[in-house]
């Protein structure tokens, strides 16, 4: 009984770290630009597939490939914001139409991927390597590396946020865009860079996800997206700490529920948690503002 519990926690940390990374990227976009970017899921899928091309087809080293994919997705994400999201908002599209447009972008990207890569399930085919035993659970070296990488990236990001000029500008812009602009902060540039950073995180998470799930298809990103949204909202949307916290919480929760209940329902548990948080404490566990005024 205790074994199951601990091993679930262990796996939860592993899957939670990927989720935390992805949610961090997502919450940055949501918090800064106030848009529900549904296409984020497509970028995760894209990352997974690019990783597949590099690792499985071209034999590139895993970590190098991850770095390359992260950069590519980062650049794409920045361009996506500049060329697509920002112009939509400038043209006066409200939140509804913008969200729908991002959903359309999701569909476009994912179906483009499947038309090129085919519907069959893909795998990186990486052998699990050495395994390490911690109390009652077993983690492979890859999983450990991913946890380490994720934690490392999140730490770097926190340093960035607290210490650097960019981080300060980011926080200011997220709180009050107009005020930030009048303080001389180059809001557009900060926003583009933030989307780029979130793309980096997304790309890393996408490859990591493909690694941990072993097999994936063109839907991997959009199914993961719901978990990402759940983690971000539960933790407190727009709040970086919240996304990280939420990611680990949801990761562990899904592992626990799949250990004790029907595994097919493990995701449902996460969604129930999400809906519960939205109804009871919409600001999220660590978050600030979510309720409407009526």
């Amino acid at each position, binding site marked *: 009984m205790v074994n199951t519990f601990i091993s679930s926690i262990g796996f939860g940390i592993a899957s939670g770290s990927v989720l935390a990374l992805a949610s961090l990227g997502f919450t940055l976009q949501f918090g800064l630009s106030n848009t*529900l970017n549904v296409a984020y899921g497509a970028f995760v899928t894209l990352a997974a597939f690019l990783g597949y091309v590099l690792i499985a087809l071209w034999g590139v080293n895993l970590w190098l490939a991850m770095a390359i994919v992260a950069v590519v997705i980062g650049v794409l994400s920045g361009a996506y914001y500049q060329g697509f999201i920002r112009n939509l908002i400038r043209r006066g599209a409200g939140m*509804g139409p913008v969200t729908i447009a991002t959903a*359309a972008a999701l569909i476009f990207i994912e179906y483009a991927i499947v038309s090129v890569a085919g519907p069959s399930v893909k795998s990186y085919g990486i052998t699990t390597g050495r395994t390490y035993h911690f109390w009652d659970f077993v983690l492979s070296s890859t999983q450990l590396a991913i946890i380490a990488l994720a934690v490392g990236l999140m730490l770097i990001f926190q340093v960035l946020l607290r210490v650097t000029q960019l981080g300060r500008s980011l926080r200011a812009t997220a709180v009050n865009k107009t005020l930030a602009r009048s303080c001389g902060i180059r809001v557009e540039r900060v926003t583009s860079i933030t989307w780029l950073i979130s793309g980096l995180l997304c790309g890393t998470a996408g490859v990591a996800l493909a690694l941990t799930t072993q097999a994936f298809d063109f839907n991997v990103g959009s199914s993961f997206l719901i978990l990402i949204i759940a983690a971000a*909202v539960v933790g407190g949307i727009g709040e970086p700490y919240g996304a990280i916290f939420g990611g680990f919480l949801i990761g562990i929760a899904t592992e626990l529920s799949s250990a004790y209940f029907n595994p097919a329902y493990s995701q449902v548990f996460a969604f129930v948690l999400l809906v519960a948080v*939205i109804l009871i404490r919409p600001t999220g566990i660590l978050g600030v503002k979510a309720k409407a005024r009526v």
Partner: protein
Amino acid sequence: MLLVYFGTDVIAAWGLNLQYGVAGVLNFGYIAAVAIGAYMFGALTLGPDSGNGGYQSYIIGLHLTPALGFLGAALSGCIFGGVIGLLGMRRLRPDYQAIVLLVVAVVALTVVQADTGLFNGNSGLSLIPNPVGLTGPATGNGWFYVAIVFGACIVCYRVLRRFTDGPLGRSLRALRDDDVAAAAIGKNVVALRILVQIVGGGFGALAGALLVGFIGAWSPSAWQFAESLSLLTAIIVGGYANNVGVIAGALLVPVIFQQATQYVPGLASNAELATDIGWMATAVLTIGFIWWRPGGIIAERRPRYGSGVRSRSRFSYAPLAMAPATVKERAPGSTPSDVGTAHEFTRPAVVAKGPSTTSTTSHDERAGSSSDEQSGRALLQVSDLAINFGGVRALESVTLEVAAGTITGLIGPNGAGKSTLVNCVSGFSKPDSGSVMFNGHDITRAPAYRSSRLGLVRTFQLSRQFSRLTAIENLLVARQHHPAESVLGVVAGLRYWKGAEEETVIRARGLLEMFEMTAKADELASNLSGGERRMIELMRALMTDPVLLVLDEPLAGLSPRWSERFEEAVRLLRESGITFLLIEHDLGIVERLCESVVVMARGRVLSTGSMSELRTRAEVQAAYVIG
């Protein structure tokens, strides 16, 4: 039979259009309603043993006749919508609502796929009996089924118009355009949203049932997330918030889907690739329209009520020249204005003891405990109100009174908490402690729409309007207790509420004339200038027959000429019995208009008295200098 797909798409799109186009609720999970309808139809019409050696497992299995199957399916859609509505349509930001709705659909999909006992899991249901007595499509009786679908479309259209047209449709659009302003004129935003979930859910479910009756099978692959998008595309492309436009969209989208694939080489043999390309084309189409033509091919049109022009709406009105006279006739005992112009205003229900133009059921509530409003009794009593925002004490021990029949001013430097106080008093924020009594009712924890309905109406610092309604519609929507917005009104239709609507239009036109904005009556609110918007906001507040009107910096952004008119109007209105709480920075106007003034600074009430008294008090001067 493409016509069957077309017909069911139209019905489904209408339902989603009601939710999104008209009421502004973005429902990514709409497809779940369609799925419920399909599954319920199957579950109701299939026998307990599907006659195939029982290889399907599912719930119910009642072997009902198809007609009952359709009805049951539609009903289950309504129930589903109701549950979703109660769960998710609370006071949430619109994007959170969108998330909740999406999650519901995904959860439903996951659960159904996983649990084979519910609806046969991933394999889905099949061999669902075709109502025309045959299994499978493409037979001689296919046309009969088309007729069934067509008949369903006609019925649905009649029902739909009860919700998307007329005063109810107007209120839904108001809630779409600005839910905060809608609450400020007494619309129960949450209830309306639940309503469209129920009705929309019914439509979706019926569409699903009709579809599955024809196809005979239904599985999770038929209702993935992408299907919701294709319906949204139909709405966006065809005509947002426009029922006829949606028909065009439902026609166009599948056509594009198919046609697109014909121009890509090498697809003839590869059906899967064709589907993928089709989806990509649909996505591009959606984005294209959002980018260039968000209104869709057939854009939303608002009815016109202008004078001189032969009205295109179904109501007949007296020409505008007669309107003021009519207004005068309808207001017995109203005092002629002494400003020398013929402007009149229908007196609010509080003073007119005789027949009033608005429903009298609210009259008793608003009359409150005392019927003599000139006694100077306290209409509004705020006691020891306090509220914190994340550690900042925005209001602290705020106590003040507004006497009936007076104009009370509320002044103070920026950041003093004036707007916060207004928010707390009117129900847009919940105070942490203290109480607010209005006209004998405790409204401390009442939601915004409730205070508005009781007669406490506020305006906003940054004026709010319903941008996609015309100026006059902005006024019409503010009418309280419109018979068209009741259950009886929806069921009985136009004939029931036609009279009330005509009255409302006459009143609105009277107001427009009074403020010299008749020419702009049919102009979309988004096209009005800043000053015009502010006047519309004031007029809208007046349409609600307020007892206490709280004006939050109404003169900000008004030209001197408009300011004068405004001041004149406030005086006039006070004559007719409305009480005012006026937040203003222009101390000259405050001095001229207000008998009593309250000064606030840093979240507290600093001082109370007449303006001339306050000018001499040291702490008031200090507050303005230091802030």
